[in-house]
């Protein structure tokens, strides 16, 4: 089985979110970039397929050279090879189109992507990639088993979960549950050393066009200070929620 894991290169959760160039660009100054958390669950599940079912795992990112350390980290965790599509990510559609070319050229059976990135939160690349490559698609995937050409997955739905059966080729939008938080792997020294020798191929883009443009960013208005209620006067909270906040 050939698996492609899509890796989004995102600011660490604790990063300060600021914008530059008239609020049109994300300010990367002092920001640490990491593997998108939803992708990391998928990458770890891919490692399981590699170890238990002899799958071959490639990781891919659409982005400039600055994303290579993130791909190297994925290699250190255990992926066999990496591909970087050498173009800036503009919108979900453009990224999906670039990835579709990688999928077609590489003949992957299973594509594991995160349900959304924690920066742009578009939640569209996995589904678009499935649509563009005529693969089956399971979103919000929290469990995945593959047996030959058949796959069984569980997806989270509003208020519960749903078990589905499908077949390869398959794209999933994965999230926590594919593996547990405690299963996530921190690269060890041996993994880091080995990652340096693993192939990281840079491919040129097909120059897919974006369908949307980011015009400007805004930060939410600063929040007022918390209104504290005395622990001995809980009724005041009920009154505030009813009369002031009008939520009960």
């Amino acid at each position, binding site marked *: 089985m050939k698996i492609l894991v899509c890796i989004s290169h995102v600011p660490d959760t604790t990063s300060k979110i600021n914008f530059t160039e008239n609020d049109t660009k994300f300010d990367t100054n002092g920001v640490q970039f990491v593997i998108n958390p939803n992708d990391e669950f998928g990458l770890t599940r891919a490692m399981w397929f590699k170890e238990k079912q002899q799958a071959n795992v490639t990781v891919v990112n659409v982005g400039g050279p600055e994303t290579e350390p993130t791909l190297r980290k994925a290699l250190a965790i255990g992926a066999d090879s990496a591909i970087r599509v050498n173009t800036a990510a503009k919108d979900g559609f453009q990224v999906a189109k670039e990835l579709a070319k990688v999928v077609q050229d590489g003949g992957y059976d299973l594509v594991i992507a995160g349900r959304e990135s924690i920066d742009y939160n578009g939640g569209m690349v996995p589904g678009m990639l499935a649509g563009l490559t005529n693969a*089956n698609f399971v979103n919000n995937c929290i469990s995945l088993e593959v047996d030959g050409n058949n796959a069984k997955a569980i997806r989270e739905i509003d208020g519960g979960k749903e078990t589905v059966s499908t077949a390869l080729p398959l794209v999933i939008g994965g999230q926590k549950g594919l593996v547990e938080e405690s299963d996530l792997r921190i690269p060890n020294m041996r993994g880091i050393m080995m990652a340096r020798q693993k192939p990281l191929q840079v491919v040129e883009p097909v120059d897919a066009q974006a*369908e*949307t443009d*980011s015009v400007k*960013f805004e930060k939410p208005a600063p929040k007022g200070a918390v209104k504290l209620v005395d622990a001995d006067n809980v009724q005041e909270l*009920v009154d505030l929620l*009813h009369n002031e906040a009008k939520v009960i």
Partner: protein
Amino acid sequence: MSVLVYTESESGKFKKTALEVASYAKAVADKMGTSVTAITFNADDTSVLGNHGVDKVLKVTNSQLESFNANAYASAIAQAVRNENAKVVIISSSADSKYLAPLLAVDLEAGYASNVVEAPSNTAPFTVKRTAFTNKAFNMTTINTDVKLVGVSKNAFRVVDNAVSATAEDFSPSIPELGVSVESVDKVTGKVTIADAEIVVSGGRGLKGPENWGMIEELADVLGAATACSKPVSDLGWRPHSEHVGQTGKPVASNLYIAVGISGAIQHLAGINASKVKVVINTDPEAPFFKAADYGIVGDAFEVVPKLIENLKTFKAQQ
């Protein structure tokens, strides 16, 4: 040339988000000087849509579509868009809508903006405001394609009464290969889900153990709220994963979010930030949640929550 909206139903009844997206579609249609067409799947009575600005309803009734299937629903909606020559397509941010949206976007070659929180500020170029960086910023985005797909955030656009007389007609799209088939559904019934809840009551590690969740459930019951929990609580196995809210868990966009014994790690706050009013109850006045909350009580949850339940019961009895 109309605005087409997918209004979701469950067991034949419309969800509140269906009325939100219908109201949103009406706002867009007014800006563009056109009408609103809704598409429904196996919904019973569609007349309620007319109260919120829908002019025409395309009713799909098909036993093959009893369980949601992203391919089939996306294909049916795409066929409706082509039949109606719709230029703008509106959907919600439910798990199902977010599942079908990218497939629909590819089918229609439509640019797609998700998590949109306001009516478009401009329709040429079509410009919407969406959340990004997990609610830490807004992103003004233009959609440049002929057909535009807009996913509206939950609880961001108010349900607006706008009575028109909706006509209903049957619509029988061709159904493509499903690709994915449902084997079983495991859904809690009779309980408010986090996705649909107006109020969410959430517990953290400050509650000391799963045996103490009785008061969280009772508080939720009094308020008609859904229960949720922080990540450590689900990691420890005190509560099911399906209750975990935060960046890697379920997103919350309720009217009221009550956090009990949750310190407010940045990953937690990222997931619940879209809630309108936040209340925190915590013994530690330095807990970061107090910076994110609107109202707070510094105190022991084991004393404060039972009192709050009593006071709320009295309040509810008076209403």
